[in-house]
């Protein structure tokens, strides 16, 4: 018996993973050089990373954040400024972007000392907006609303990565590494501490888990990953501006996590893939495209509130939630039971 056989059997997972890996590796071939689909796949991979990293905060540790767009942007801006202004290579600026974001994330993690639930949502949202406004106004560093054009693409062994296939593989490697890292963290002493905090902070602290320390750790790692993703994005699009990292991005990433399912490894991956594919698949609807997108979001969340691949009942407090359910969702009486009982 494996440690986590609660969630899925290891053999099945291994086969699935192997198959998936093969498909992902030969995808550019499969698509026959269709760069459009490759671009969609690249975006999926990027958002898989972003959503998975946010899941560290929301799904594992049970906190909230609506500032992920800003973290992502911070990584992008740091890397872009360093490489455009100082001419540093991608392989140096990218980790620096991640580190700076992680630092800010750790700082924001301090806020979790005082903020909970919805207040944390708004605290992080306001923080994200402050970052955006600063980027817009700090023209001498960020070029303000003009954005930063001409960000050099990354180089590998002296050759610039320019084709869609290059980018695809680069982000694929990055995404696999990050998801793998998140996976390993989740199934480790650290992941258990996070989940313990999510489940019951008081009990976790009496088990010797430093609640505050692990919350900050979750924020730091999550922001590190998002910052790295931002840096990648900057060198991928070669032009960034503040409006690419606004609230809309934060909403999108949060939605991916919630739709896919909080607290599981697969959830954010599924959520990210769906929310990138759906708008593409709905293109034929023209101006009703986003109407349907919104409607779909509502319907899915109402039908499967824990998300498509989430853990059923997660975040339902064992006592409070149950009582609320019985109070508000009156299930129809089962006639047979009553007949049997009233002899």
């Amino acid at each position, binding site marked *: 018996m494996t440690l986590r056989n609660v969630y899925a059997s290891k053999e099945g997972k291994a086969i699935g993973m192997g198959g998936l890996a093969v498909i992902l590796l030969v995808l550019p071939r499969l698509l026959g050089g269709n760069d459009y689909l490759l671009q969609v796949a690249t975006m999926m991979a990027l958002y898989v990373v972003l959503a998975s990293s946010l899941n560290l905060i929301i799904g594992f540790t049970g906190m909230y954040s609506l500032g992920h767009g800003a973290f992502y942007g911070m990584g992008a801006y740091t890397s872009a400024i360093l490489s455009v202004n100082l001419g540093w290579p991608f392989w140096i600026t990218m980790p620096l972007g991640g580190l700076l974001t992680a630092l800010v994330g750790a700082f924001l993690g301090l806020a979790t000392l005082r903020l909970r639930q919805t207040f944390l949502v708004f605290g992080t949202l306001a923080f994200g907006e402050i970052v955006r406004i600063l980027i817009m106004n700090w023209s001498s560093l960020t070029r303000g609303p003009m954005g930063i054009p001409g960000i050099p693409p990354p180089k590998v062994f002296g050759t610039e990565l320019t084709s869609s296939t290059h980018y695809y593989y680069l982000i694929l490697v990055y995404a696999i590494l990050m998801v793998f890292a998140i996976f390993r963290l989740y199934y480790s002493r650290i992941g258990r501490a996070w989940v313990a905090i999510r489940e019951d902070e008081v009990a976790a602290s009496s088990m010797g888990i430093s609640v505050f320390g692990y919350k900050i750790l979750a924020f730091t790692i999550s922001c590190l990953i998002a910052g790295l993703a931002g840096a990648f994005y900057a060198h991928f699009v070669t032009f960034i501006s503040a409006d690419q990292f606004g609230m809309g991005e934060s909403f999108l990433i949060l939605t991916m996590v919630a739709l896919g399912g909080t607290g599981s490894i697969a959830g954010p991956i599924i959520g990210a893939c769906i929310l990138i594919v759906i708008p593409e698949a709905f293109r034929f609807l023209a101006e009703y495209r986003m109407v349907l997108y919104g409607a779909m979001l509502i319907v899915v969340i109402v039908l499967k509130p824990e998300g498509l691949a989430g853990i059923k009942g997660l975040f339902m407090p064992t006592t409070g939630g149950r009582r609320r359910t*019985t*109070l508000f969702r*009156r299930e129809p009486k089962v006639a047979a039971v009553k007949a049997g009982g*009233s002899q």
Partner: protein
Amino acid sequence: MALLDVKDLVVHYGKINALKGVSLHLDKGDFVTLIGANGAGKTSLLGALSGLVQATSGTVTFKGGDLLNEAPEAYVKGGIAHVPEGRKIFGELSVEENLYAGAYIIKDKAQVKSLLERNYQLFPRLAERRKQEGGTLSGGEQQMLAIARGLMSDPEILYLDEPSLGIAPLLVDKIFEFIMQINAMGKTILLVEQNANLALQVAQYGYVLETGKITHEGNCARLREDDAIRCAYLGVNGNGN
């Protein structure tokens, strides 16, 4: 005819079986107590008997009508008042507002007024503090308020969940006097208590609930003499002390 008749009530919380087929019987004017340790399922039982908790199966017959798994307001309208554990008064509402909240289902303003007056007569302490916020009352006063609030819907049956909880001993006596007084007024009472000794002294009939099942029932006087109960609930050592 029985006022409240409960048969084979089963309640599950997820996979946990909190009540495993409980049957109770209350006639009009009865003073019945239900004792049991923490976690025995007392609060779940009261919840299921006032619509707060969804039962899996069983019957709850009140005045001949079936109430199982109806919404809480159906119970209140039927004539059941539930004074919850821990008093649960509305801390930020004044004493009077708390009482008005208790009379929520009564449409007739004059009747509400007269119920209010009656409660103030019964609990003069509350009349003195009618404008005070409920949260600022002492524990005993809060318990009185909770009972008075329960009476405001002019119920036929009053559930009292652990009225002695966290209250100074002198006041506990006082509150139990009130409860007996209310019973004497003709209200049926179902008292849930952990303080078995006290409960078995004031009530007429008792049920003992253990891990979701009724293990003993009978006349309180008889239950008090029962060895098993003396040993488990009255703190008297079974090895003859």
